[in-house]
């Protein structure tokens, strides 16, 4: 293919992509917003709990653990076995836009034999975040969090729930496991 032919083809390609990008966007229906609003469901914890989840098992366990934590804190005195009891009112109104003080926090756990460690906490809405592993078997991850009190734990190789031994406190989740607590 000659140079001018290549140039022509390049121009054609550019024009072709431009034609897609610059194609006029048709007007959106007048009732678009209303349609969206009609389809909204209130963010109900109970509804989420009842809705079949496509998430991995540990995420489902995380949801159960969250419910357990809330109940555990509410009925704290009955379940208190020496661990520090967290008042419900001291829990952060999670994930609100706020001008609260922010903290950069490094979470780490040493597990040389593990292939993968994830952290799950109420600051991740109990979604799993994979930690980075270094050469000496330390798994670490950093998050920036607003001031408050958070519950979390580590999931090792997708099967073992491990509390953070360097945490500020611990709280039973009501289902036989212990969550770690951090105060910021």
């Amino acid at each position: 293919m000659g140079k001018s032919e290549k140039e022509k083809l390049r121009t054609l390609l550019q024009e072709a992509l431009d034609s897609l990008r610059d194609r006029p966007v048709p007007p959106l229906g007048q009732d678009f917003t209303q349609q969206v609003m009609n389809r909204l469901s209130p963010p109900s914890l109970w509804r989420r709990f009842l809705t079949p989840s496509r998430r991995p098992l540990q995420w489902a366990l995380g949801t159960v653990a969250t419910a357990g934590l809330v109940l555990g804190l509410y009925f704290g005195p009955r379940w208190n076995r020496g661990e520090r009891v967290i008042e419900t009112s001291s829990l952060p109104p999670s994930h609100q836009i706020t001008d609260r003080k922010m903290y950069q926090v490094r979470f780490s756990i040493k597990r040389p034999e593990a292939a993968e460690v994830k952290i799950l906490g109420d600051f991740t809405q109990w979604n799993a975040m994979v930690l980075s592993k270094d050469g000496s078997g330390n798994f670490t991850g950093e998050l920036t969090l607003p001031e408050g009190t958070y519950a979390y734990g580590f999931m090792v190789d997708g099967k073992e729930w491990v509390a953070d031994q360097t945490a500020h406190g611990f709280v039973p989740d009501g289902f036989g496991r212990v969550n770690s607590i951090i105060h910021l």
Partner: protein
Amino acid sequence: VTLLKPQRLIKVEASVRGQGADFEKKNPEKEPWEVEAIRLCQRGEKEPFARLVDHYKNWVFGLMFRWVGKKEVAEEMAQEVFLKAYSRIGSFRGEAKFSTWLYQICFNRCRDYWRSREFHQAAYEPLEQVEEKPALSPHAEQEVMSRQQERSVRRALESLPEIYREAVMLRYLHELSYEEMAEQLDLGVSSLKMRVLRGLNLLKNKLGGQGDG
């Protein structure tokens, strides 16, 4: 657990992005009404979300329309984006712009589109006609040629392997920078440049070229 450093409320402003960039250039600061609407939605209220939908709907719909080329499909996808945004609004921390956060949901929905039934159905249907033109309009012939070109380009794009198609579309239809693409796709800039280049070469060949570019 280690506290590294306390800091005041961080404002990690997302870098300017293509279609998002246009939007953010026009909205350089967080609007107080927007912050308040988000805060109320995070408390479980529904009504303030309508204002967010009103504000962002044309932008979201435009992104979807460029991606799929069909009005009905794009509109449904845009609605799903807002439904997802509302269900996840609790996870929005205000560290980035709301439009940046919303774009992430848009992009995930665009990616899902390739695997969806609507995409495979759309492959056998004609593309959306934007508007009717009078048959004797002086621009009618040009319009027809333009539509045919669009159709052939979109068909060629859709036939590319997904990794190249995605890279080319993010770069040229959503007009992201390579840095923004790297952030979305969690890939290096150099490998993304290779994907775009390879995608363009494949596209060129499909549109009639013979050379390797």
